[in-house]
Every structure is written in C-alpha cells, then in structure tokens.
C-alpha cells in the first residue's frame, strides 16, 4: 500500500471508531434499562468535566482539583434563580456561565503565571471554601440544598425523563468532544500542546502563553459549569454533598486514568470510574460487615497503580489494541495560497546592535559589557570556548533572559526589556541549543508553530472549524520549509523519533516558518554528519542570498570558517576579537583563549 493509502486507511479506522461510538450512543437508550440510562447520563456529565481537565492538565500542564466548585456554581446559580425567582433555566445557564467565567478569570489571572504546584494547592483550598459557602448560605438552603428545580424545555419540548436528558447530555458532550479535538488540531491547539513542556519555545515564536493558559482554564471551567447546569435540571435537586473536594479529586483521577493527553481519554476515564464506583458500591458491602467508603480506597490504589504502570492512562493502550498505531498524522495540503511575507530591510541598514550588554546570574557575570553589530545580509558567527556566555547572549537578545545593563537595538528600535514574543513579532527567530521540539507532535506540526504569528485564528474559530483556510496556508508553508531543509521524508513522524542532529534541522525549519529578518542559530551543525553539514552550509548561504541575516553560535571551526562573513570571539563573557575568518584564525588572543597561554 502506498504511503497516502496507509494514511487514508488509518483515518478510515479512526473514523470507524468514532462512528461506532456514536452508533452506540444512539442505540443505547433503546436497549438499556432506565437504571443504565441514568448511569450513562452520569458518565456524560462527568465526561464534560474530565474533558476540561484533559485540556487543562494533560495537554497544557495545569492541574486543578477544584473543578467540582465550577460544577457547583453552574448548578447552584440555575437552581437558585429558577426556584427563588421562577427564572427560565436558560437564564440560569447564562448566569452560571457568567459567574463561573468571572471567578475562573480571577483565579486564573492570579495562578497561571505561578509555578506548577501553586495552582493545584490553591484549587483545593478554594474548592473547600466554595463548599463551605454552599453549606452555610441561608439562600442556598444550607447543607440541605435546594429542591424543586424545574425541568428544561426547548420550544415546547419538555425534557423531563432520564431518556430525554440522555439526548441533551450526550449531544452537549459530543459537541464538546468534537470542539476540543478540533481545537487541538489547529494553530491555537499546537500552541496549547507546547505549553506543558515547551512554554519558553512557544513564547519565542510569539505565543502569549499566560493568556493561552487562562483561555484553557476558562474553557475547562465553563465545561464544568455546563455539566453543573445539566446536573441540576436532570436531578432536580442540588446540595453541597455533590461538590466536595473528593468529587474534585475524582474528576482529576478520571482524566489521568483515561489518558490525560487525549480528548477521548475523558470518555474512557469518566466511564471507567463511574462504572467502577457503582459496581464497588454494589459489591463491597457484601464483603465487609462495617459500612465505609471502601470505593475511596480502591480508587486511590487504582490511581497509584495507573501512575506506576501506565502513566499515560488507558486510552493509549486501548488505541494500540484498536488499531496498532497512533492517530493518523495531519497532512499538509499540496497547494495553498502563500502567506504574506515581511518587507526585507534595505541592505545598508544596521540590523542588530548589541551595546555594552551585561548579564549576571547572582555573583556570576556571564556576559560582561559585550558590544557588536550584525549587518543586513551577513552571516556572523559568535564563537568562544564552553562557558564563554554565547548561549546566554542568545537568550538575552531573544528576550528569554533580561539583560542587567546595556542596550540592544533591532532595526534602530530598543528591544532589550521586551518579552520574547514581542521580539519575535519584530522578525527575530531562533533555534535552541537544547532541542526544544514538542516530541509527540509531528515534524510538520512542530514547524507550523514557527508560523504562529503569521496566522490570526483563535481558539473559538478553531473549535468551530472556521480556521480551515488559514490552517491550509500555515501547514502548506510549514511543509515548504521542511522540504527546504531537506526533511520531507520525515514530515509525518513524531519529532522525538528523529536523530538529535536532524531535530536541530527541524528547529531551523521552524525558525524559517516565522519568516524572519534575523535568524539566530545555536549550534545548528552539532550532531550532523559531513554531508548533512555541507547541505546545511548550502542552505544558510541560500538564505543569506535571499536577504535573511544570520547570527550563529558554533563549535565546528571548519564549518564556521568556510561559511561566515565575520566572527565575534567571546571568552569569559567578553569580546576578545572581531573580524574576518582569516584575521581571527591568526589572532593571538583567540589562540590563547582556545589553546591556553604560553606562560
């Protein structure tokens, strides 16, 4: 079978799994007993919350044990408005979204910028606080809760039985699942998938990571709130007992057991834990005389086992059983309108001017009063022994680190003190010394992150698939850059499967996808074989001829001397020499720095 044939077959099988799942959902209410339909309803409600956690925890790396509080807010707002004021449940839904949105925005603004562990601790704390608020407010019926919540009706169709709710709950859940899957397969989604392990890289390509984390936090909260609204009108009763910290912990367990990095993991996790809980409640009392929360112990042990033995959850295992392979890779369209390009600077313009830059780490001065210029249309190499401060300088220029002194100008404008994504907007793209790819994403998708700033479509457009035109153009551009660096054969492979040297080349393609004016390459030739180095040198010369200026750090002197126009030599954070390759090769200070002094 041809390559595209294999892809099409795999796609068909994925679709087959999805079609079978939908067919099961459609058939279920006609075959299952009332009790089992109710159970399915609870699975649907839990899936909504777990799906938010998959995006939040598994994909974006933010952990929340407080989703039950958002469920509670969604449920209580509608229960209170409909019972105390006779308001329409639809108003209750909107009000619930409004309040959840406000609170999530507040909590998110504070916590998403902080270290990973603050968010889970604070979500536990405020989840407890919200529980006690529900339990102590007179208007919310204290610990007894609110009863007599009315049924929802749509255009005269009253949703008043378990089977009718089944339809409503599962339509909502399916929409949320498809929207989440659409999101992950988009410009915004690629940025979200980089948040967990590669946030610095994402910032360097223009992603506002803090804002994106906030958007995901908000989305997860709104899904929880929707689940709460459905719950309140389905059960017709709300009380604080449904929103304890333990419930919040269970939602997170669902996401982890199912497989927190995949959308369908939410369905698997919610099903497994809901059914297991029901079954344990049924079976355990037969074994033990005493009453107790035995299922809690089983859940806890199950979690420990999952984390020890299958850290990525059940979904990947099921997927392997089902089709022996990962989901089909996103393919690049054969043709698409080209993306707009940046105007090239005039040849005589001074491009990057570093003037007297200092960078200290505590007492250690990594860069000391360094000054040099990169001119338009040249390749400048920055060389020096290990620890000379080259990579630190790269990080300072690209805004990953902030300089302690001095000035950096790009095309005449001060850029020191700007954040990395602002510097990226001005046309500087970089590669990293330690390869910074999202290992589970394909080469094509990784390179497409480079083109992030050349698109505009956000999360909402992605969920609704309004982004397809732009997406085609972005992927086509990404594929063009992969082809340019000579890696077309690896387009659909996960980036982590490539040898390290080629991963560095993928980094170059990603930087090129940003349409840079200035390219910063940190040891691009490390780990490449001789022919690959020659091809790389050829590529870089071609880029220079197109008007892209290049600043590179490199250790391989043969590679550097044959390629670059000028060199700057650093040692102990200072510039010790600057000039043409042949001048540098005979410069006494350089020889001393590399070979050691004579005395």
């Amino acid at each position, binding site marked *: 079978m041809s390559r595209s044939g294999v892809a099409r077959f795999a796609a068909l099988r994925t679709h087959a799994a999805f079609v079978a799942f939908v067919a099961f959902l459609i058939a279920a209410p006609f075959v299952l007993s009332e009790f089992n339909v109710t159970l399915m309803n609870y699975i649907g409600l839990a899936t909504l919350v777990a799906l938010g956690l998959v995006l939040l925890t598994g994909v974006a790396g933010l952990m929340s044990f407080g989703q039950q509080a958002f469920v509670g807010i969604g449920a209580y707002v509608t229960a209170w408005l409909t019972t105390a004021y006779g308001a329409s449940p639809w108003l209750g839904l909107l009000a619930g979204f409004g309040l959840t949105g406000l609170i999530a925005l507040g909590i998110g603004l*504070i916590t998403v910028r902080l270290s990973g562990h603050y968010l889970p*601790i604070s979500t536990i*704390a405020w989840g*407890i606080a919200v529980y006690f608020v529900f339990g*102590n407010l007179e208007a919310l019926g204290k610990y007894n809760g609110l009863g007599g919540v009315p049924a929802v009706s749509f255009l005269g169709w009253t949703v008043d039985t378990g089977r009718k709710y089944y339809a409503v709950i599962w339509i909502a859940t399916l929409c949320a699942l498809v929207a989440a899957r659409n999101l992950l397969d988009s410009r915004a989604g690629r940025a979200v998938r980089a948040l967990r*392990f590669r946030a610095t890289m994402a910032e360097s390509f223009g992603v506002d990571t803090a804002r994106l984390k906030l958007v995901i936090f908000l989305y997860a909260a709104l899904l929880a709130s929707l689940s709460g609204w459905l719950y309140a009108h389905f059960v017709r009763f709300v009380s604080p007992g449904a929103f304890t910290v333990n419930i919040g912990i269970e939602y997170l367990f669902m996401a982890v057991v199912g497989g927190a990095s995949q959308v369908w993991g939410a369905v698997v996790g919610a099903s497994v834990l809901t059914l297991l809980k029901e079954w344990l409640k049924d079976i355990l009392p037969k074994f033990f005389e005493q009453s107790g*929360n035995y299922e*809690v112990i089983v*859940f806890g042990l199950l979690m*420990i086992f999952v984390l020890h033995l299958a850290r990525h959850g059940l979904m990947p295992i099921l997927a392997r059983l089902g089709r022996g392979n990962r989901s089909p890779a996103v393919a690049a369209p054969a043709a698409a309108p080209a993306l707009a390009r940046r105007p090239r600077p005039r040849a005589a313009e001074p491009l990057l001017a570093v003037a007297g830059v200092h960078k200290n780490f505590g007492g250690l001065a990594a860069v000391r009063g360094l000054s040099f210029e990169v001119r338009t249309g040249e390749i400048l190499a920055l060389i020096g022994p290990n620890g000379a401060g080259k990579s630190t300088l790269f990080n300072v220029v690209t805004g990953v680190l902030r300089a302690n002194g001095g000035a950096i100008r790009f095309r005449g404008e001060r850029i020191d003190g700007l954040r990395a994504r602002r510097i990226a907007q001005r046309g500087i793209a970089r590669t990293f010394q330690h390869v910074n790819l999202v290992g589970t994403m394909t080469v094509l998708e990784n390179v497409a992150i480079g083109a992030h700033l050349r698109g505009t479509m956000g999360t909402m457009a992605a969920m609704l698939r309004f982004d397809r035109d732009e997406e085609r153009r972005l992927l086509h551009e990404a594929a063009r850059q992969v082809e340019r660096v000579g890696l077309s054969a690896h387009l659909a492979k996960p980036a982590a499967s490539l040898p390290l040297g080629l991963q560095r080349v993928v980094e170059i393609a990603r930087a090129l996808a940003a349409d840079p004016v200035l390219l910063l390459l940190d040891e691009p030739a490390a780990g490449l074989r001789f022919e690959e180095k020659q091809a790389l040198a050829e590529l870089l010369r071609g880029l220079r001829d197109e008007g892209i200026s290049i600043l590179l750090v490199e250790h391989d002197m043969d590679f550097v001397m044959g390629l670059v126009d000028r060199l700057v030599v650093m040692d102990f954070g200072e510039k010790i020499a600057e000039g043409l390759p042949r001048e540098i090769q005979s410069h006494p200070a350089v020889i001393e720095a590399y070979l050691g002094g004579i005395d």
Partner: protein
Amino acid sequence: MNSDIFLWLVQDGVTNGAIYALLALALLLVFAVTRVIFVPQGEFITFAALSLALLESGRTPGTLYILVFGGLAAATIELFGIWRQRTWRRLPRIAALYIALPVVVALLVVWAAPRKFDQWVQVLLVLAMVVPLGPIVYRLAYQPLANASVLVLFIVSMAVHYVLTGLSLIFFGGEGLRARPFWDAKFTLGVVEISAQSIFVVAASVVLILALWLLFEHSIHGKALRATAMNRVGARLVGIPTVLTGHMSFLLASFIGAVSGILIAPITTLYYDTGFLIGLKGFVGAILGGMASYPLAAVGSVAVGLLESFSSFWASAFKEVIVFTLIIPVLVWLSLRSRHVEEEEE
C-alpha cells in the same frame, strides 16, 4: 469584644498556629527534598490523635493494621527486588524494618492497650505506630516515581490521601474523639487565664522547630538533605543516596505529623478526616511564606491560626471559607512578582 475575649482568641490562635507552623515546616522540608506536595501529612495527624484517644479508653487502635499490612506490602516489593537482583545481603535489613518492627510494635500495643498505662507511655506507643508509616508510604507510593514531575507526584499524594482517609474511616469509624489534656492547670496572667495545655503546645512546637533547625544546620544528615533539596543529581554524584534522603524526609514528616496529632488531640475533637483540613492549613501557612522560607512559613502559620480564631468569633460558619481564601491575596502578590515563563520538565 472585650479584652478578655480578645486575649482568649489570641491564645487559641497562637496555639493552633504553632501546630500549623510545625506542619508547614515538615511540608516545606518534604517538598524541598523530594518535590512531593505531601497532602497525606494530614492523615498522620488523624492517626496519631485518634490512636491516642482510643488508647486512653483502653481500646486497641486500628492504626496497627495499617502499620503491619503496609510493612508487609513494602517488604513484598523489596523481596521481589532482592530476588530479581540476587542482593540477598539486604534481606535482614528489610525483614527487620518492614516486618519485625511493625509486628513487634503491633504486639506491644495489643498487650499494652487494655492495661491503660500512664499517658506518656501511650504517647510513645502512638509514635511507635505512626512514625514508621512515613517511610512505608514513601517506599510504596513515591519511591518508584522519584523522578516524576511535581504534578505527577501531586496526583500520587492525592491518591495516597484517598487511600488513607478510606482506611481511617474503617478503623476509627465516623464518630469524633478527643484525648485528655496532658496538663490540666490554668494560670492567671493579669486578666487572662492561660491553659497549661496551650503553653505546652507552643513550647513543644518551638522546641521541635529549633531541633529541626539544629539538625539541618549542624548534622551531616541535615546537610545531605539540604544538598538533595538544592540539586538531586549533584547530591547523587557526591555520593548522597537520594532514596535514603527520601526516606529520611518522610520519617521526619510522619514524626512531625504524629507529634502534631498528639498535641492537637486534647484541644479539638477530631474525626477520621479532620487531619486533611489541619494539614491544608499548614499548607496555607507555607504558601503565606512563599513555599520557600522556613521562618516566613512559621509566621504565616501563626497568622493562619489567629485569623481562624478571630473569624470563628465573628463569622463562625465562614471560618473555613475565610482561612482558605486567604491564600488568594498572597498568590496575587506572588504572581505580580513573577515574570518567568513556567514549563515542566519531561
């Protein structure tokens, strides 16, 4: 509010705050050395407090089942490792630590419980039952994941918390228990009456905090712990066994948890799940101190105690709400200071 009530609330707040401070220090220590956010610390408090109350009434606490079965589970895993790697010389140590010690302690408790010995003997029995649980829990749940990310370790903590609260309900039941005070006297200081129990709690906390400080600053084990906290790989390279430092920090955590439980048992009625909330208040204290500084964490914890005591006077129903939303302004302050882009390690 008159000055009597004011001073009484201060006394109450400082007493609880001293216990939170002790917990906050243990939590910071465990986090620094192992990167584990040790939520189950709260269960050690519960186990110790309820075991003490049961021993006082001459009953045998179920804690010893947790100890014996936990020890056996750890021993099984270790034996499997020994059998696979043929490292038979480790056998006696494993058998002594995970089998002999728990069984001896359990037999001792079974023998001593109905005899209602002096309170100090009971305290020692409680320590003997609860303290070994720290290393056992570390061995079973955390050691295989020692290199996992903070977030994965956090989920493990929540899972362990789940298991231990479930066991707690089975062994202690749903009713609340309270232990006798160690010292019944009351002193009158001007207008205010100070209970000897409060003085005892505060003094014990201060002594323990000082002892921890001495241990950290001046002993080789303390230095090893600090080195591991700074850099795990580096510590390993200079020959510090990081598994051992993990066990040691959990041993300290379970010891501090048990002491806190013993100190708090005569002050409040504890239920099978109360320890969780008490432990979380220690966390709030630690967060008030920015999750890094020991003295600030201690100050933060006393602030939590005072806030709790005053809010229970003014708005008793919303006491917990006030304490747990307290961390939000602190987080605001911390977030305003941070500029760094956060990412996890793979």
